[in-house]
């Protein structure tokens, strides 16, 4: 199985072929494609600024498992990105990965991050 770092690098490579506008479209597509559960509970709600985000985070052996969704498409795209990177990672791997820096490095628009209460999501995932 790939490590968190490898998965992050694969996605970064995919993004590197896209310009700013395409990256934005890519997030929308990623959001549209996200498959998820439909039985989220209130306590799984992460308060975002303008949209609702649900995350279910649990551990299987030493690995982190995550599913989640949002009522907004772009946020769903971000949730999907978080899952691609963090799901199945070890706890140690996940704690040492700086997702916001990774977003910045890969030029995923800042205003988007801000509006999504991304920090709240990361707190759920990274503790």
């Amino acid at each position, binding site marked *: 199985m790939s490590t968190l770092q490898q998965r992050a690098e694969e996605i970064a490579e995919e993004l590197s072929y896209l310009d700013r506008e395409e990256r934005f479209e890519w997030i929308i597509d990623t959001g549209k494609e996200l498959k998820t559960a439909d039985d989220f509970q209130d306590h799984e709600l992460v308060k975002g600024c*303008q949209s609702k985000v649900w995350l279910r985070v649990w551990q299987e052996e030493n690995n982190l498992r995550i599913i989640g969704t949002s009522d*907004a498409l*772009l946020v769903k795209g971000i949730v999907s990105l978080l899952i691609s990177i963090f799901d199945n990672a070890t706890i140690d791997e996940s704690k040492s990965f700086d997702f916001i820096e990774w977003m910045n490095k890969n030029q995923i628009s800042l205003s988007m991050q801000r*509006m999504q209460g991304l920090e709240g999501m990361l707190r759920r995932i990274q503790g």
Partner: protein
Amino acid sequence: MKQDFPLFTHNPDLVYLDYANTAPKPQSVISAVCEYYTHYSGNVHRANHDIGSRADHAYEMARMRIAEYLGAERNEIVFQKNTTEAINLVAQSFVAKLIEPGDKILLTGLEHHANLVSWQLLAARTGAELVFSQVDEDGCFDEQHWLKLLISGVRFAAFTAVSNVTGERFPIEQMLAAARGLGVPTLIDAAQLMPHERIDFDKLGADFLVFSGHKVYGPTGVGILIGRYELLNQMDPWIGGGDMIDTVHLSSSTFQEPPLRFEAGTPPIASVIGLGAAIDYLDGHLTETQHAHESCMMQGVLNALNQIEGTRFLGDPTSDARLASFVIEGVHSADLGAYLNEKNVAVRVGKMCAHPLLEQCGIDSAVRASIGLCTDQTDIDKFADALTKAVKRLR
């Protein structure tokens, strides 16, 4: 008109539809601010040198200009930080003294938080009860209900002149006449009225009127309270310090006359001077032709929205407003705002500082497009185009 505004020179592709949030600044305002800092950046009201006197003069000239434009006396114009602070001043320094526990303060269900939370704080302090006129099914102001509450006996009435969510202009003239008839003092939140309509404070007959400089094409950091002088003169200051005192002893002080009584400490001098220039700009440009132009542009915004299936407006969009808040079925407002932003269209997304109203409409988050002096057909066309694309892509 855009050529007067450096924001548009520096962002030629920008479609700015967020005037109701804050307005762009014309060069004349920027120059007035710059000139103060460049040529005569002294303090006011304590001048013992030329630079200070020049600053003082410019500051007081701005007050004079604003008074003239609004049909008020010079000493009825109080500089505050913004609309919010001005409302709080009236609440804490004027209304607080009127209130006995159980007395009612009349508001409407369409207020911005500035004209709601200020009164909640006062109510908590004084035991006043807040009563609200209802919002009808279309999200409009219910004048009959408001009148009924007014007649039932209230100590004070505060209401917005134009809703920042629905754009509805309230029948303030009739409301003020009714309140005056019953001897109920009034405050008008004119934050959204002033950018689009010239008013005459004296003729209007309100006791207090407030607005923000930054929404009338002026600098941030300054807002206006206009109050009838005899009422201002009854008010104790809320914030104490330099500039607002007459005599000071260690245990007590006596205060300056209004308006200086309420302008403690060094004021935002540059912003006040800039606001003077903004008022000059409004005076020159808020013409009947401009009014007709804005109506036409707003119709363009509404046409674009009506093209989209599943658009729902908050309030009545046909009321010749200057803004429209809406939701589009199957598209999250946050997504729509972000998509429009990608296409250089700036709109407001969220609850617009009016949580109770949105709650009543059963809406989590809406999009608001608002127009102003510079809005032109190109903006409308680009907005329509971006909107159509956004909905197609996001649904």
